[in-house]
């Protein structure tokens, strides 16, 4: 039996921001700079990453997950500067990551898949079964835990993906388009889960659905052409938009107003 509270749980944090990027540049492919001089500081809470297609959201999340090496600038995760190759082991243990197109082995059951991921994430062996059960229950897949992945619907696969992301109780949780394929009821449940996680985790959710942001996020990060356009609470984003802007809700109008401004500065339409 493990102690209920470990020394690591009550140790004071030695950093101000879970994620802190200064002048961050990340290349996508060989030539294109998908993240180009980004300054961003994220603390605990749920941060919604919004932006048009091709804004560099996925590249940014990959860089934060340390699978892409930054081409310039500095990136600090949990107070540790991420640089060079292969020094991320300790940081990665505290990161949860759900890629946009996440692959899995079809023959695994949900439990085997999450267990395998827990092993890959170096969760202590004795804690794996309990951690897996907890993660699977949190995403509401406990009754399907012993079904094979290939027998699941798209929404359930996505939830299994979320389960593997939270199985190591991460401090930084990166979710790339997690709500794709979820039906409205599941989406509501997912927002609840996000809010729950946001109390002690730095959650960054990339999405193109503005209503997800309105419902679940404490903070909006608007990102276009590799740069930060706006960061602030959802209300502030809503207040930017006026009736002349495109959109069905105040948030959508604020979103299109800000994107319009950033594009006009560049001289394109």
């Amino acid at each position: 039996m493990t102690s209920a509270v470990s020394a690591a749980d009550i140790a004071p944090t030695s950093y101000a921001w879970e994620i802190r990027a200064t002048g961050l540049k990340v290349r996508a492919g060989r030539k294109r700079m998908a993240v180009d001089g980004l300054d961003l500081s994220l603390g605990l809470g749920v941060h919604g990453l919004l932006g048009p297609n091709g804004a560099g959201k996925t590249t940014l999340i990959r860089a934060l997950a340390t699978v892409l090496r930054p081409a310039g600038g500095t990136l600090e995760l949990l107070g540790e500067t991420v640089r060079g190759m292969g020094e991320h082991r300790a940081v990665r243990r505290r990161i949860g990551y759900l890629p946009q197109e996440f692959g899995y082995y079809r023959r695994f059951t949900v439990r085997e898949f999450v267990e395998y991921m827990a092993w890959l994430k170096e969760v202590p062996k004795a804690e794996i079964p309990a951690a897996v059960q907890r993660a699977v229950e949190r995403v509401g897949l406990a009754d399907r835990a012993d079904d094979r992945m290939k027998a699941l619907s798209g929404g359930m696969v996505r939830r299994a993906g979320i389960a593997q992301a939270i199985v190591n109780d991460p401090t930084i949780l990166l979710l790339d388009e997690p709500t794709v394929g979820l039906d409205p009821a599941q989406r509501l449940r997912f927002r609840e889960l996000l809010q729950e996680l946001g109390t002690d985790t730095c959650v960054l959710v990339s999405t193109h659905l503005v209503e997800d942001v309105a419902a679940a996020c404490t903070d909006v990060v608007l990102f276009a052409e590799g740069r930060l356009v706006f960061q602030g609470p959802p209300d502030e984003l809503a207040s930017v938009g006026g009736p002349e802007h495109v959109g069905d809700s105040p948030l959508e109008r604020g979103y299109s107003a800000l994107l319009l401004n950033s594009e006009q500065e560049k001289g394109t339409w």
Partner: protein
Amino acid sequence: MSGEHASTRIIEGYARGGDDLAPDEVWAVEAHLETCPVCRERLAAMVGAEVPAVASLVATVWSGLEPRLAVTATMPRGRRWSARLSRWMTPTMAPWLAMVVAVTLLALLLDRADTGSGTGTGSGSDFGLGFGFGFGEVSLVLLLAPILPVLGVAASWSRGLDPAYELTASVPRAGLDLVLRRTASVLGVVVPALLVGGWATGVMVAQWLLPCLAFTAATLALGGVVGVTRAAVALGAVWAAAVVAPTLAASRTAFVLQPGVLPAWGLILALGIGVVIARRGAYSELGAHR
């Protein structure tokens, strides 16, 4: 907590509640109970025997929980061997490894048929008719040995063949450790198969084992730079163009497979291992999966 246990007085006081124990004693016994199954058992016995109020409360909780526990399926015993196996190879590698073994056996059969019939036409023009008749002295096992593990290694670390490549690249265990585990499992399958093949055809072990290991190390070394799949394809093409084709055309063992060239293979092996170790960080990034 082997040595010291809470005294009966403290356990009894804790079970009763109330003011029998000082607050610091309560903290101490709670901290001790968290880690000590023996004392938890004593506490349970004490509650059952001495404190009916708590016992009945616990019974109420149980009776409330029982209907829900009945419908909750218990966690099945996992398939332990499959969990252990997946630490060494991904499920997608299995068909590739099966293919590698099948090719080895096929090469062995063709070699046997070749030496059995003893007729080398040497023309090289009738490959379609009889693969085994074309190359007299050349052992197919020897010719294929270096390239077979490369296929397996490519399958273990490739974007196209491993659906979970992005998840795998993002975990703490990703990197040289995991690459070597998977490579070892590939070699664990391929080398015994080749050993049987080599023994049956009478080829010297070092003559195929060294090129085999050298090619595997070179794939990993090059893979850290351009991606393992690309490296495997490139080295496969080099092998086919530089060794297989001339051998088949001339129908004698190529120069690079002569016993005298073995030190060179050893050098390539050492170089490959050196590069892999020096660039070990590269395997924990997406680039190595190309």
